[in-house]
């Protein structure tokens, strides 16, 4: 008895104490509480623009509005001339290309191919006035459009086909007296409508974010943190954090989750270890396009068909156009499960001068760099937008069609529905060689998903990835993922070893039993 007591005191009690020490005590997420407190403070503007004398008047020339802004904000005009929202191009270093000056100004995309020859309509979303063709003056600060970002009335409208100019006759007096920090509505005016309609391009940026619940976006949800875009896309002197890899290439000045949440935001260390290799977005954005559909597929090759000699459109049950004579076939999807790729924050782009490799299954409009062995790479959720774009089978370059014009008969595809003419006009505008022949090439464009972060309770669970079949990581290569990855040799040899052990033991037992009975017979006789 005494012996047992000694044993318990010397062995069991220390074991229990050590176990209790090693056990994770439950802690409160202090960081999150602090963030909530910080960002629940309302923004109080330092200026009431309605009290400014220079703004007590009507305007009809938008350049004059800009000049009036600059009369007080004397240096902001110059800042804007260097802002990506205005220049639509930036200096980057791309592995394999060197220093490049790329942006919306000169890059292709998987939607309307590019802005070239279509500037007047595409550039409605340029933060400037009058970018109607390649001759736009990027050095004139009075060409900046202050209002599209700073109008807080929510009423400012840019003109369709107006090359960035506002709809004439708006109540500019009220608008200029109510300027301030950009709101979601300001940013969304352009960024929700990329690709030619709500949520067409990004899938995680759309009008619903203005009114959505925190289930849709935990940061922007009106019943959640109700953050503004610029809370995360922190801006100083009009230089903002954030990259869209359809037009960016470098791993700098990115808006990251870590800037608020740190690189170890979880109370569970096991989850924090994942941060090294898994981007926050991967688990915390289990699906995107949670409210309205996003365009997943765009086949230009079928554009131009007519019904009774006229252009027509077909819609799916949700009212999304699945065929348009002017745009071709399309596929739309809601609650999309992202595809996952290694990504290190750098990217490359297919340029107008690049050659199409027809031996490849598809052409990458942009390429996200990264792989499992790159310490900078993490696994990111990506919207893959697939399409078919026109190309020149002789010169092997992507072809830009002229899509838009004010008038018929000038070769615009969307009016005249004539591919041949549209391509000739588009390439003539670009001043690039065109053989006169055209075909279509399958394309893919990769858009990392960053918004529509779900509440923590909706985040992916372990078994969503750590599973043998149909896991989220099923196509992610190069990493050993416990529960998913197996080594065929180790597993078959291991199972064989176990089977052999069983067989050995059973055989031995059977022989033992038989010989024992034999021996018994011998003994008794």
């Amino acid at each position, binding site marked *: 008895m005494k012996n047992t007591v000694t*044993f318990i005191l010397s062995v069991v009690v220390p*074991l229990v104490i050590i176990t209790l020490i090693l056990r994770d005590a439950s802690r409160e997420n202090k960081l999150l509480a602090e963030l909530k407190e910080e960002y629940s403070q309302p923004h109080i503007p330092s200026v009431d623009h309605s009290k400014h004398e220079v703004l007590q008047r009507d305007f009809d020339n938008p350049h004059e509005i800009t000049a009036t802004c600059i009369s007080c904000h004397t240096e902001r005009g110059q800042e804007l001339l260097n802002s990506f929202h205005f220049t639509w191009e930036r200096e980057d270093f791309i592995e394999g290309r060197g220093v490049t000056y790329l942006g919306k100004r000169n890059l292709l995309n998987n939607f309307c191919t590019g802005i070239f020859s279509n500037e007047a309509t595409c550039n409605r979303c340029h933060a400037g006035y009058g970018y109607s063709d390649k001759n736009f003056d990027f050095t004139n600060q009075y060409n900046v459009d202050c209002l599209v970002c700073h109008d807080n009335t929510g009423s400012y409208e840019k003109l369709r086909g107006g090359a960035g100019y506002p709809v004439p006759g708006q109540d500019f007096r009220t608008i200029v007296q109510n300027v301030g920090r950009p709101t979601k509505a300001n940013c969304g005016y352009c960024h929700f409508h990329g690709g030619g309609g709500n949520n067409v391009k990004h899938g995680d940026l759309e009008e619903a974010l203005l009114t959505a619940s925190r289930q849709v976006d935990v940061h922007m949800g009106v019943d959640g943190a109700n953050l503004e875009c610029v809370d995360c896309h922190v801006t100083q002197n009009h230089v903002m954090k954030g990259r869209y890899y359809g037009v960016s290439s470098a791993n700098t000045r990115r808006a990251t989750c870590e800037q608020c949440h740190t690189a*170890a935001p979880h109370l569970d260390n096991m989850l924090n270890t994942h941060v090294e290799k898994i981007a926050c977005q991967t688990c915390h954005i289990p699906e995107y396009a949670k409210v309205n559909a996003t365009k997943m597929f765009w086949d230009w090759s079928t554009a131009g068909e007519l019904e009774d000699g006229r252009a027509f459109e077909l819609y799916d049950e949700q009212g999304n156009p699945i065929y348009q004579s002017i745009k071709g076939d399309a596929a739309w999807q809601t609650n999309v499960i992202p595809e996952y790729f290694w990504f290190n924050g750098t990217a490359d782009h297919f340029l107008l001068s690049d050659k199409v490799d027809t031996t490849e299954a598809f052409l990458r409009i942009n390429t996200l760099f990264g792989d499992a062995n790159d310490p900078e790479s993490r696994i990111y959720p990506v919207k893959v937008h697939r399409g078919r774009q026109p190309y020149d089978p002789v010169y092997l370059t992507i072809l830009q069609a002229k899509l838009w014009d004010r008038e018929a008969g000038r070769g615009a595809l969307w009016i005249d529905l004539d591919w041949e003419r549209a391509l000739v006009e588009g390439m003539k505008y670009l001043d690039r060689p065109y053989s006169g022949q055209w075909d279509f090439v399958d394309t893919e464009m990769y858009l990392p998903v960053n918004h529509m972060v779900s509440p923590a309770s909706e985040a992916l669970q372990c078994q969503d990835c750590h599973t043998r079949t149909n896991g989220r990581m099923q196509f992610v290569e190069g990493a050993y993922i416990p529960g998913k990855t197996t080594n065929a040799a180790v597993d078959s040899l291991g199972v064989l070893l176990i089977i052999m052990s069983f067989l050995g033991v059973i055989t031995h037992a059977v022989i033992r039993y038989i010989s024992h009975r034999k021996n018994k017979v011998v003994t008794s006789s």
Partner: protein
Amino acid sequence: MAKKEKVYIYKLYERFWHWTQAFLIFFLALTGFEVHGSFTFFGFENAVDLHNKAAWAFIILTIFTIFWHFTTGEWKQYLPTTENLKAQAQYYIFGIFRNAPHPTRKTILSKLNPLQRLVYLSLKILVFPVMIASGLAYMFYRYPSQGEILELGIGSLETIALLHTIGAYILIAFVIVHLYLITTGHTLTSNLKAMITGWEELETEEGETPVSQTIKDPVGEKIRENTPQITPDRYENKEEI
């Protein structure tokens, strides 16, 4: 003529260690192969959590046991010997089927036959260290630098995981064979009973001082003093299998 005597062969800590270890190995295999993706039982997250907790328990138990081995001198039991090694192997392959006697006599000073010594020693110095080392690496290999342990700089989990998996298969094979071989004592259950109660009936040579009495074991001594003497049965009269 061989005599039989009840001997207190497995001490209290030894049995505690053995059965805790047995439970932990079973539990680690169950949770470990769930983490491996072989089946679903606890759910992946719980399996990982339980596996890690059991791993810490195993490590602590191992530290205590290393201490016990050296303070009691029991580590000498595992020194490998070639003496009787062949005979022992032959016994399992042939002798056992002919009712031949065990070639190695079990005593308190030498509880293990040469094959056991070899197998248990390789568990102690090879399989367990590899499993513990790869297991710790598995847990910590990519802790972020702001965590308690700095990044170990191991690029991929693959080598660690494969090593750990190979070890797991070997341990399962060991357990299967071990569970069978414990039935090869004097009776089917005599080894099992010994590991549960600590007492086993061992042979002593005629005229020889029972080994149990030569051991300096004050605790065991006390237990023996308080235990009524049991008349040993004759080996030949016992139902063997």
